[in-house]
């Protein structure tokens, strides 16, 4: 009888311990947000997001930071940095612009992009320096 209790207890401890380890590893290896598979938290026109940041950076930070933002606008500049394409979208009558750093998987699609073209792009907003910055961007249209 006592042997059976001991066995059961041992078994339970093992189950709890392995569950704990499993949860820990799941948490530790939690993947990054996959922008291409997530729907955007906010969809805006380039002029609106720029105006929001120009009006009040603090308010815009609470609204946009770490969110998946989908922006529509006109490409004003195309650059590459370390093999990654950076698409700059300008607003209308605004000083700043939106710099979209494409995710590595999206680079192939960047070849057919042209300045002056309309584009819809989504990415994670990390903040505002001279420009609004979006990282891990995916081209929608």
């Amino acid at each position, binding site marked *: 009888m006592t042997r059976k209790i001991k066995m059961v207890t041992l078994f339970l401890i093992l189950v709890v311990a392995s569950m704990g380890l499993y949860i820990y590893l799941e948490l530790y290896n939690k*993947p990054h947000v996959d922008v291409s598979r997530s729907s955007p938290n906010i969809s805006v026109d380039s002029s609106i997001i720029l105006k929001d940041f120009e009006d009040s950076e603090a308010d815009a930070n609470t609204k946009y930071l770490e969110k998946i933002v989908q922006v529509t606008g006109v490409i004003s500049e195309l650059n590459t940095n370390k093999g*990654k394409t950076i698409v700059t979208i300008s607003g209308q009558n605004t000083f700043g612009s939106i710099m979209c750093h494409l995710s590595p998987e999206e680079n192939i699609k960047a070849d057919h992009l042209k300045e002056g073209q309309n584009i819809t792009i989504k990415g994670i907003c*990390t*903040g505002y*320096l*001279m420009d609004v*910055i979006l990282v891990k961007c995916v081209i929608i249209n």
Partner: protein
Amino acid sequence: MKPIYILTYCLLFVTLLHGQEKYLTKQGYTSFFSSSPVEDIKADNNQVLSIIDTTTGTIAIAILMKSFMFEKSLMQEHFNENYVESDTYPKATFKGQILNFSTLNEDQKTANIKGDITIHGVTKKIEIKTQIVKTPENISLKGSFPVTVADFNIKIPSVVINNIAETIDVTFQLDHQPYKK
């Protein structure tokens, strides 16, 4: 307090941009590396803004904390939420001087930079030696320096004290181009 900071930064950049001889990068690179017996932690940031005024040798750098990309998303989450508190302190900044900038010529390989670095709302004086390449088309700065976590009032919980180094190595590479309006 915060709006004043923001206003100061804006004014700083606006005034810096109005002059003539500005060199600028919006895609500067910064990374930091923490090595501990338990694990190595590295994060990269490719969105550093840096502006040099060549008439005075003044340099201003702004870095978004949320632009640091980690290998593990949990590390990135902890870094932003618990350590640098990037919702409250979204930027790290540096403002200073490239010493003897006007006398530097194209043969010069190193330069000293002296100024104030602000991380997590705490400002410290710093002087570091950098590699420099100065040509009319490009001013490139490259180097690294140590940052002691405790100096910037960043508290590491005792549970993970062995996972994070007390001193972090910060590396940077900034390739400035002439600024055309």
